[in-house]
């Protein structure tokens, strides 16, 4: 079962590689042709050298020696040109394949649903786009080079056998071991190196995490814990590195040793043949040169075998991502976004992020077009989840979710999302300028509209004070903004998108109370004519809404104005910690 899976993955990997390489067929043909000419040129050199020594030296014909020398140089020119061509085409094919595959992978990842990304680790996906695709690249480089190598091998064997079959057998006897050793070595070192890469990645994970979370590490004095984690990783790296070194120590010296065995055989047996008058001295030289010539091709074939298995496994992993179906796609016959006021209806909506735990179970909620509704509820109650269902980041599992009476699953996604602006609770800014971040939804937006969005979200004041104003680079690698400042840029980003439906997910949690009423006034302007979902914990923000809905246990358990809910709902009072008003829960005496 597992083996079958493995085999199936590899097969898929091969298909992927085959399809990716196919468009380059002209380059491949050219590369192989150059490789064959190159081989032919190379093979003649030892023959010429041997002829020069035997015909020339022994018979004292210096003129002949010089002629042969000139021919050698001419052949050298051909060899040189062809080696350039074959290398260029091999690498070009491989690089093209690599680039195309990575592009496809990225494009697909960009479209994969949220649930996929919830489970994927960025580091792992990066590894797919790097390590795995590079394995394929290496294989593709090797393929045309190996074709030339095979021709070289056959040529050498034929020439040597014609010259002296016994000597050929003796001289070549040790060489297959080089091939076998190379294949075995590559096969055995591949998993070790893969483990090593993995351990190195884990180690860099610990470093990256410790440094990104350095405030927490230092705040709690948890340095020792991280050091222990790192030392454990460093030990694992050492272990794998030594395992790899052991294999290398076993194999590498063989590369020098096995050809030497051939040379000894040539010297010994060939020498005795010369003494017996069966062979010329020049042939000894030629044989030696042929052995040199075989070292690389044999290793290359060994490497190719091992690389093939690595590349097909890597290709299989890439293919698995590429063939992950987009869960959230346009339905056949999807319709345009309805031109209505933007009424939102949840009817008995059920949803969970995974099996076994429902987050929403039977949510009923209607928001009229243009209305602003606040979602209030305890931590983890599912408020953000509600906001994520509207733009179809996830699809509901049961019930119905309608915008202006149309099921969201039948609306074209691009239109749906362009009409919904969302401010996430965890602000993500790109490493771009403030201006580009605000104009994210519409990079062509005029500077005036960027400024207007900044003004409405209360960002203008601090942005103009930044070192380069709107051109200041922010994000992970840019200027460090305070929490409140980041949030405001995210609000501006949603404002600029000019959506019909606006979702503010705890978008004012880091905004200070002095600014709050300013932003509130501005947001009032923004919300004008839009259906707005406000997820908030603060009464002041809740006050922006026309109506409040209390979310608890995955359902809307009460709705009304803030006042009405305070009066009528015990749970609402608990959530807003205003239980004192009604008295049933005794809290600490005021200080």
């Amino acid at each position, binding site marked *: 079962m597992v083996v079958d899976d493995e085999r199936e993955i590899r097969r898929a990997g091969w298909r992927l590689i085959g399809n990716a390489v196919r468009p380059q067929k002209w380059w491949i043909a050219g590369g192989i042709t150059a490789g064959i000419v190159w081989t032919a040129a190379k093979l003649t050199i030892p023959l010429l050298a041997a002829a020069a020594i035997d015909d*020339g030296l022994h018979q004292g014909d210096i003129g002949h020696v010089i002629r042969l020398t000139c021919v050698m140089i001419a052949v050298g020119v051909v060899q040189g040109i062809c080696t350039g061509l074959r290398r260029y085409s091999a690498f070009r094919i491989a690089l093209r394949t690599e680039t195309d595959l990575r592009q496809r992978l990225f494009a697909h990842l960009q479209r994969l649903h949220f649930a996929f990304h919830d489970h994927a680790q960025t580091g792992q996906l990066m590894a797919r786009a790097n390590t795995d695709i590079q394995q394929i690249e290496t294989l593709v480089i090797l393929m045309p080079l190996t074709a030339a190598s095979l021709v070289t091998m056959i040529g050498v064997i034929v020439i040597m056998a014609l010259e002296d079959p016994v000597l050929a057998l003796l001289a070549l006897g040790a060489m297959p071991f080089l091939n076998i050793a190379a294949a075995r070595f590559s096969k055995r070192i591949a998993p070790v190196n893969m483990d090593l890469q993995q351990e190195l990645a884990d180690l860099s994970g610990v470093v990256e995490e410790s440094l990104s979370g350095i405030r927490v590490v230092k705040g709690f004095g948890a340095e020792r814990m991280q050091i222990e984690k790192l030392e454990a990783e460093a030990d694992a790296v050492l272990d794998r590195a030594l395992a790899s070194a052991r294999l290398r120590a076993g194999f590498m010296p063989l590369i020098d040793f096995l050809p030497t065995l051939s040379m000894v055989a040539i010297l010994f047996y060939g020498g005795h043949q010369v003494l017996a008058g069966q062979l010329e001295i020049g042939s000894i030289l030629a044989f030696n040169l042929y052995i040199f010539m075989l070292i690389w091709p044999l290793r290359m074939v060994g490497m190719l075998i091992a690389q093939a298995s690595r590349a097909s496994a890597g290709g299989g992993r890439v293919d698995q991502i590429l063939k992950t179906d987009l869960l959230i796609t346009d339905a056949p016959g999807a319709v345009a976004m309805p031109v209505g006021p933007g009424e939102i209806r949840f009817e008995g909506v059920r949803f969970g992020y995974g099996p076994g735990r429902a987050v929403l179970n039977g949510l009923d909620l209607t928001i009229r077009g243009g209305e602003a509704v606040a979602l209030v509820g305890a931590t983890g109650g599912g408020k953000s989840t509600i906001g994520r269902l509207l733009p179809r980041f996830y699809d509901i599992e049961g019930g119905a979710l309608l915008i202006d009476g149309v099921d969201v699953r039948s609306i074209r996604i691009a239109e749906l999302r362009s009409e919904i602006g969302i401010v996430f609770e965890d602000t993500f800014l*790109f490493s771009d300028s403030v201006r580009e971040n605000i104009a994210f939804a519409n990079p062509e937006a005029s500077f005036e509209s960027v400024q207007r969005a900044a003004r409405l979200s209360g960002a203008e004041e601090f942005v103009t004070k930044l070192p380069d104003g709107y051109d200041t680079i922010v994000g992970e690698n840019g200027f460090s903004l305070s929490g409140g400042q980041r949030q405001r840029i995210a609000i501006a980003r949603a404002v600029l998108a000019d959506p019909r439906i606006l979702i503010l997910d705890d978008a004012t949690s880091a905004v200070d109370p002095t600014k709050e009423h300013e932003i509130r006034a501005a947001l009032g302007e923004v919300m004008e004519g839009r259906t707005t979902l406000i997820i908030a914990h603060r009464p002041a923000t809740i006050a922006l809404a026309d109506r409040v809905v209390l979310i608890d246990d995955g359902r809307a358990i009460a709705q009304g104005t803030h006042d009405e809910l305070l009066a009528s709902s015990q749970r609402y009072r608990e959530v807003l910690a205003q239980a004192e008003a009604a008295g049933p829960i005794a809290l600490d005496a005021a200080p």
Partner: protein
Amino acid sequence: MRGGWVEPGPLDDEDKLNRDQARSVLRRLWTLLGPYRSAVYVASLVLVAQTACLLAGPWLVRYGVDAGLIDKNASALNRASIAYLIVALIGLVLGRIVIWMVSKTGEQFLRYLRARVFKHLIGLSMGFFEREKTGRLVARMTSDIDALQELISQGLVMFVQNILIFFGAIVVIFWMSWQLALAVLVIVPPVVFASRWFRRESNRAYLEVRESIGTNMATLQEGLEGVRVVQAFGREGGWTRRFRDTNEAQFEANLETVRISARYFPLVEFTGVVGIAVIVGAGGVMVNEAIISVGTVLAFVLYLNNIFEPIQQLSQLYNTVQSSGAALQKIFGLLDTEAAVGEKPGAVDLPAEGVLKIGAVSFAYGGGPPDTDGVVAPEGPIVLSGVSLEVLPGERLALVGPTGAGKSTLAKLMVRFYDPREGHVTFGGVDLRDATLASLRERIVVVPQEGFLFAGTVRENVRVGRVGATNAEIDAAIAALGLAQIFESFPDGLDTEVRERGSRLSAGEKQLVSLARAALADPALLVLDEATSNLDPGTERQVELALERLSEGRTVVVVAHRLSTAERCDRIAVVDGGRLVEIGTHDELIERRERYSRLFAAWDAGQERTA
């Protein structure tokens, strides 16, 4: 690997070490190698012996040809063959020993270096981490040390051996026949020249490759990390195009290196053929004149390989060695960076309890000691000026004020993430600068504004609060905050994986985990920097009560935007524009009818409107 396409690591100008730097890096390395030195000596000796074995081969061939074949002496031929075999076997054994010794020593040294660098790094002060980009620091621990690993596992033995072989072979061919050697050496200058051209050009091209890979990977990573925002705003197409640009740039940069080597390798192969031609041609003439023997011609052809390969390999390895040197220098630079906020000699433990006193503190970000590149950050604007404040044992103090006022900065000074420019911070009468860091971290704990969850289970994340806490203690802390209840409903309970950055949890749940850490740590002074901003007020209240109960009589400083939180504190300090503008109880400040009362009125108005 011999011969293959060892990709030379690129170097930029700042990577290049001049002679003095190289010497000092080497000296430093030698000191650091202390316990591994004897292994280095032994390995060097073995390496020399192994190289001698390699070079002996063609010499024996020559002997076999001249004494055996030309002079028709079978026993000389046999002797030469057997000697060749023995030398090859010895070379095999020695080769294994060298590789194993160098790798083992090298890897152990790297293991030591990794731990040492990380320990040093993590002990540096906060100011350092604000200045240095995380990515660059991670690179010190990863790509820089990996460069050394590459050198040890692939390059070092080859580098030294190639040098030995090259010079060894030259000595031997001159010894055999200086005339033919001179003739052959005609081809060396073009190869050396071409190799230098190749090194220079490919170095330039690889720099471009490195740059383009960096950009491409950054785009890739950002596209993945921000994928939710990209989809929310329907920008998949735009980002895919953006990636295409960087991806194609990487292709172009790579192709340029291929173009360069497609020019270099033909020349090298051609020169190799010319070399053989010269040996056979010139050698032929000389044999004819009886200046040299036929065996010598053969040996020359074989040695040609030993001269040729090292030149090519060295030109490729050169960059690997150089970039390893540069990597070492950067690592040393990091090890030389001293913690600005370090422990003084003779530092004392902080008392178990006491008054936290902030005396006339002024502060600006930036400045401080130079970073690893020797760049001193420009001093930023004054963020705090003349702030004085006392927090009594057992008191709850709130810090409020507008965004950018300096609240978080003040909180950071309280836990000595930074030292003040002027003034002092003391706890129980001991200046924080005179305290041991261990006691400081134990007594004073901050839950920072940017909470951070590590990939791992909920339990593991809470353990950060007190390293070495037992599961029972962790569970107790979690239960005390009412978190157990929340996580019980999760499929794996407290063993639930929170995933990268805690993405499995809701915003409030993440904060609860951070707070559980604080509950577990149970310090004398707890600083909460907006640690409850994403919680619903009900849960927030419950957590506050729980923390209060847990740390009966402990001192707490909270930075809060929710004035309901501030209202419940014993005293409230208002920070604005880097100054402490007001301090007192809620009632006092309301009476004064100044900043706080205005703030509170604005806040209350919000409440009112809804109420």
